[in-house]
């Protein structure tokens, strides 16, 4: 073999090895499954594609867990992982699926709303591929996703995303962000199809409340809050006051801006009778000026740079050496969700929703998130679903 051929062969082998070293973990991540043990309250598990068949067979299709109570009442849609790099919502939703029992009304739970984003990664920002939650029976492993859907589901991005139907110009990558594609359309790009399917779920089932669980940086003013349009603001305000007084944590109310289109808290309210609420819990992991993006930072939120910034009053949350652990974030989501149901039910007794078995903030901070997950290896096979 000539020298040139030797060099080319070695380089080709190195390139293949590099592709395998980089590509195999990504491929494994994309197809990794997270088992969910459906709790006693789950009466049915359907697919989002039931509301838009175009999603069937795609990575964008996702499970909808239905928890129907004995007594008819109001209907609530709870979504998580609209942004799959904000996992507190996912964990809260899974805790509800595994533990909630609905006495009156119906819950529709979509823990992986942007299923494609949940299988996307952000290695260029040093994100870990997985994180583990310690439980009483071992570690439960979750995929760490990305904010936007994978280009493998929806490609290419436009230069500018022209939002439907108002034609507001949004950032190019927001076409893959399911918190910018509401209300969606059946023949639009894939993520618009996802949000359209969710709108159809709400319209067809006459859903009364929609709750979208998120996380936001500590350096961002819209964090540690409930974002609500005018029609939801009274309930949001009562929830905010009550959790502060009775459960001891802050959760202020942010008004949903009328001129910023595509977000769930805006479009769900404008295009249906459903009352939308978007919940933000602080997630220090997403802040720009932190140390390395480790799973430890994701779980406990402790960072020396953020602590320094906090002392200079640059953060929008009270941040100290204790960070902002996952237990607090998940606890906030669970408590605020339960309080929204309670305050709504007080004002609307005919369409009340009563749920039990979901832990509140104090319980999660005391017992940890993993305490509420059940061991899939010990559960009946028909109760185990995969995300």
């Amino acid at each position, binding site marked *: 073999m000539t020298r040139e051929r030797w060099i080319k062969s070695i380089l080709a082998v190195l390139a293949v090895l*590099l592709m395998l070293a980089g*590509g195999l973990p*990504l491929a494994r991540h994309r197809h990794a499954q997270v088992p969910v043990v459906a709790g006693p309250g789950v009466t049915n598990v359907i697919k989002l594609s039931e509301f838009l068949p175009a999603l069937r067979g795609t990575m964008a299709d996702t499970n909808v867990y239905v928890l129907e109570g004995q007594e008819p009442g109001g209907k609530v849609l709870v979504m998580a992982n609209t942004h799959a790099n904000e996992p507190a919502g996912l964990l809260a939703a899974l805790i509800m699926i595994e533990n909630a029992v609905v006495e009156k009304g119906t819950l529709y739970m979509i823990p992986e709303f942007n299923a494609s984003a949940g299988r996307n990664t952000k290695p260029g920002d040093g994100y870990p591929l997985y994180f583990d939650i310690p439980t009483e029976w071992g570690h439960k492993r979750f995929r760490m996703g990305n904010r936007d859907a994978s280009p493998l589901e929806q490609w*290419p991005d436009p230069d500018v995303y022209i939002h439907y139907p108002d034609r507001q110009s949004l950032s190019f990558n927001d076409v893959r962000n399911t918190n910018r594609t509401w209300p969606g359309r059946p023949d639009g790009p894939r993520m618009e199809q996802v949000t359209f399917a969710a709108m159809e779920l709400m319209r067809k089932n006459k859903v009364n409340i929609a709750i979208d669980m998120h996380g936001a940086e500590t350096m961002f003013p819209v964090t540690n809050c409930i974002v609500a349009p005018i029609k939801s603001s009274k309930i949001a305000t009562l929830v905010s006051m009550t959790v502060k007084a009775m459960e001891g944590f802050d959760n202020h109310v942010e008004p949903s801006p009328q001129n910023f289109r595509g977000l769930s808290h805006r479009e769900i309210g404008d295009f249906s009778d459903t009352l939308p609420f978007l919940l933000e819990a602080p997630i220090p992991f997403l802040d720009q000026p932190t140390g390395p993006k480790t799973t430890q930072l994701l779980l406990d939120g402790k960072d020396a740079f953020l602590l320094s910034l906090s002392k200079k009053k640059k953060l929008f949350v009270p941040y100290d050496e204790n960070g902002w652990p996952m237990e607090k974030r998940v606890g906030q989501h669970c408590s605020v969700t339960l309080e929204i149901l309670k305050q709504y039910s007080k004002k609307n007794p005919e369409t009340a929703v009563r749920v039990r078995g979901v832990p509140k903030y104090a319980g999660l901070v005391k017992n940890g998130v993993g305490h509420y997950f059940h061991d899939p290896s010990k559960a009946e096979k028909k109760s185990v679903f995969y995300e």
Partner: protein
Amino acid sequence: MGVIMLLYYVITAFIAGLLLWNFACEKKSVNDMILYLLVLIPLVLRLLSVK
């Protein structure tokens, strides 16, 4: 998969092919050989639906 997305995969495959051809034809510059392979990696990962 829409028509435009399919076309983008075709374009990607075409560019990957061009890079492989250039790599095969390159006789002198080792730097250029490395460059062709590095640029090829993300295109291959996209064609294999990995990333």
